């Protein structure tokens, strides 16, 4: 149960170190430079991950 919270670490690292991991113009996605796409992708994913964690926490609260 607690393990699922560790998921939250992934978007943090992906965003914090973005210019070290994905500092490239190519490949372009939706016309955006890859670095910008990478960052936008992880912003959306971080929101999804936090909603999943929120769901799990509420479920365990009701049990």
């Amino acid at each position, binding site marked *: 149960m607690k393990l699922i919270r560790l998921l939250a670490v992934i978007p943090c690292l992906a965003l914090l170190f*973005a210019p070290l991991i994905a500092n490239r*113009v190519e490949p372009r996605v939706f016309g955006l*430079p890859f*670095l*910008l796409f990478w960052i936008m992708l992880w912003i959306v994913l971080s*929101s999804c991950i936090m909603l999943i964690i*929120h769901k799990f926490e509420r479920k365990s609260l009701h049990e």
Partner: protein
Amino acid sequence: MNSAIIILCAITIFAFWVAVAANYGKTRQLEGWAVGNRNFGTILVFILMGGELYTTFTFLGGSSLAYNEGGACYYILCYSPIAFVFGYWLTPAIWKYAKEHNLVSQADFFIHKYDSKVLGLIVSVIGFLSLIPYLILQIKGLGIIVSETSYGLISSNSAIWVCSLVMVVYVMISGMHGSVRVAVIKDILILSTVFFLGIYLPVHYYGGIETMINTLELDRPGFIIVNNTDFNPVWFVSTVLLSAIGLYMWPHGFAALYTARSSQVLKKNAAVMPLYQFLLMFVFIIGFVAVLKLPGLDKAQSDLVLLKLVKQTFNPWIVGVIGAAGVLTALVPGSIILLSLATLLVRNILSPFISLSSKKELLLVRLCVPVIMLAALIAYNYGGQTIVGLLIIGYGLVSQLFPALVCSFLKYNPVNKYGTIAGMLSGTMFMLVFILTPLKINSMMPTSLTGVSGGILALTVNIIVMFIVSIIFKNRSSLS
């Protein structure tokens, strides 16, 4: 007079009226005035928090950084989602503790946790110092918008004085309830403006975002990613980290957390907030459009880039609407900051020394509002910082509160009040030296760390001192 400035004035006066009407018949207690009676729901808290996080800085500072430094501007996208992950666990804990102990201000929190009034005073002073550049940034933005929208009719300096006066009157009349309603108007205006500009401008000048980026990449290869200039990857990572740490530390952000109805509201907010970031991407695109279409602005002028581009492209009346959106994005957060500064000064910095009835306290808070504004205006005349530079200074100061806050939630708190006091003081002193001395601390750093944010260095000093002093004084506190 031109139509742009008339439209701008009309919308500002309308917002003003809404704010005054909202206050009619509301409670006059300080708690009601400052924390909105603690009963706002999900959507209102979401808007209110958005209203604070997305300010003039987003609008003018974001496009200016994109124009000056290219890909380095993405840092603004990265830090808040990280902060929201912290916030998911941190904010409900803060809210719960604040509710149990009936806290009003941020300093109350530290006073209760560490049982030290001195620490509370230091927290208040740090909060106060860090909010000043944040307030100056909003005033600077207001001045730029009004003087640009007037097509040179009003000079930037007189615009700043008029706007400061408007902000002071607005805060003194309305308090927190006023800003919520205006925040709604403001967010709708700014959202539609930025989406419109971010899509229209690249299509108008280049035929689309993709072509624009192709052209930019041909002309200045690598500009749209993080380069090896002063704003290199080390600068990027350290500034993202600093800002993520500082985001929830702002005294007014803390106060906004107290207004939530339940901790579930805060959890859901923290999960959804990152989606607000899409707005920012369009701000950067506006800055990128200007790189080739409005070349040659120097750093001091670069904060004007969005408005100059808008003026070059549109009719005066559209310039007026966009200007009004900009005025509200400065006025709403600016008034919240001003309100926090005044409450901080009276409740937490002055009140240990003088005792007041709650009625007199509220009166004194209102009287402090113009005094603080005047102080900020004087400070403004000394600094030549860009909007982004001002914000990073504020973050460097305010993040000094973070180590003590996190430690206070641990099951066995490894640090005590002596350590936190010493740590905060040394970190803040380091940061002030970093700002005020022309000597670049960076020049003394190893080359692999060039560009590292001063705030992160100050935070390192803070943490080391905090632990060392806590260990030294550990036995003393148990003896006494």
